[in-house]
């Protein structure tokens, strides 16, 4: 059961307690092999889907090799096709697959980790809620939905080609907000789950 707030609780104290519990919750999946496997699988899977949606993992010219731009560090944060889109600094080709490394891989890995944490906590809540000390109302799965959409957020209007929608200013703004919105939702979901952690049961 979550702790009840007392009259002496300040907002700062509540925030600290939520952060502490979230950190506790974030460690839970790594205490069980099956939950850790869910975390790893979801994180890797999501990252691959994200990179594919971005066009940074796609069929290529069929060569084998690695190419790096002249100044990869200086180029890493150079904007590319839109907000939160960064220019690729390295290309790896392996037969039919071409991978482009940019700062978006780092962003994607962060989002993928959040999705992995949320879904692995949901998995724990579903399988062993009591022994893990969390309640049964984890929202990790729901929070993952905008995160999945965010994979195409960096593509800007190009993603609209696939669905045949003309880009309006409002739509472009909405697309640009998908990624930060997904991150906020995923963090919120983690905090929400963390607030339900029963420290005594962990």
């Amino acid at each position, binding site marked *: 059961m979550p702790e009840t707030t007392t009259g002496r609780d300040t907002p700062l104290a509540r925030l600290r307690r939520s952060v502490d519990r979230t950190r506790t919750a974030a460690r839970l999946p790594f205490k069980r092999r099956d939950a850790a496997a869910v975390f790893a699988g979801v994180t890797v899977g999501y990252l691959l889907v994200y990179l594919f949606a971005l*066009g*940074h993992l*796609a*069929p*290529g*010219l*069929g*060569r*084998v*090799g*690695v*190419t*790096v*731009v*002249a100044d990869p560090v200086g180029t890493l944060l150079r*904007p*590319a*096709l*839109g907000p939160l*889109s960064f*220019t*690729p*600094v*390295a*290309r790896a080709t392996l037969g039919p697959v*071409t991978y*482009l490394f940019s700062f978006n891989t780092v962003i994607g890995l962060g989002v993928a980790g959040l999705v992995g944490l949320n879904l692995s906590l949901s998995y724990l809540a579903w399988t062993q809620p009591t022994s893990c000390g969390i309640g049964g109302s984890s929202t990790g799965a729901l929070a993952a939905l905008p995160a999945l959409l965010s994979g195409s957020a960096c*593509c*800007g*209007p*190009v993603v*609209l*080609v696939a669905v*045949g*929608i*003309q*880009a309006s*200013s409002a739509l*472009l703004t909405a697309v640009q907000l998908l990624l930060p919105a997904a991150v906020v939702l995923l963090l919120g979901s983690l905090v929400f789950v963390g607030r339900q952690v029963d420290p005594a049961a962990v």
Partner: protein
Amino acid sequence: MTAFTRRGFLAATAVGAAGLSGCTTSGSESSDPPADDDSGTGPPASPAGSEAADGAPTRTDAPASDPTEALPTAGGALPLPMTPAALRAEARSGGPSKDGIPSIDDPSFVAADRVDFLEGGDPVFGVARGDTAKAYPQNILVHHEICNDTVDGTPVAVTYCPLTGTVQGFERGDTTFGVSGRLINNNLVMYDRATETWWPQILATSIPGPWNEDPPTVSLREFRLVWTTWEEWRHEHPGTEVLSTDTGHVRNYGRDPYGSYNPREGYYRDGTTLYPRLATDDSHHPKTVFVGARTPEGAVAFEKRAVTDAGTMDGRLGDTPVLAVADPRYTTAYVYLNPEARSFEYEDGRLRGDGERFAPDDLPLRRVRAFDAMWFAWRGYYPDTEVYA
């Protein structure tokens, strides 16, 4: 750029007229048409006016604001569909910031027999001048839109807008062109790095923008690039050079974010545009390819397939009769002024007229610059265009 391959470490290269006062609209009084080198296989374009005939003016160290001082410009301004200020108001962000789509500024080339990244049917944009023949693959330019190059000693910019299906060559003097990140009528808005003036690609004419608020309205000196296939270009120019994938940038040149031309799929085939058009005219599919020509006297467009099927088509550009002629070698077409309405007939890939035979790109008529464009783009920019299909 540094490349590591299984064949070993390779070091690669680093990335590296007259000013007219006021607006020039389609109804304006015309001057001489711009130069008529249109084949993609002829000598460099020459301007109608003599001002830039000796090449690009010398660039000073101080930032210039007048593009006529920094760029070779044509003698007469091309028609605009509205005032330059109104065109500026139509500009919208395409998503990328300024230079977010990076131009190729230090291109390298490979010989035809070393090209392993093109299929025979893949589109290339070709130009042949003097002893030089160069091909710019569409699958590379779709990621860069502008290649600042030198052809036969002339500094040029090869430009391609994937959203309007237009490829145009411009002389650039001592400066280079970049991608502004803005679009008008879904068409690339370039900027020159000497004066930061905006140049909508199809219009080839300066308009005001945030980086140069009040440039004179002038048009760039253009030259023709042939939109053809790798198979056709290589057949006609076996010694051609081909723009290399070693562009100084890393992109996946095997992936076109908009679709495919070989076969035609995605954006290049569907009936939608990414951004609003300047005009909507459903008399043709928006992506139907027209061969368009414009001079200060007006504009004319021939459906490309209709010309290549018929061999020749008659039309008018302003008050002047014109003749569109197909060239099966490249599956392209040219537009000639034909004021005397002379007639030519196709015969074994050549045209017969007045008892003589001529190559399709060498008729004894004055050729006007023409290029491929998607219907919606041409119609939006040239609302008074004559249309033949």
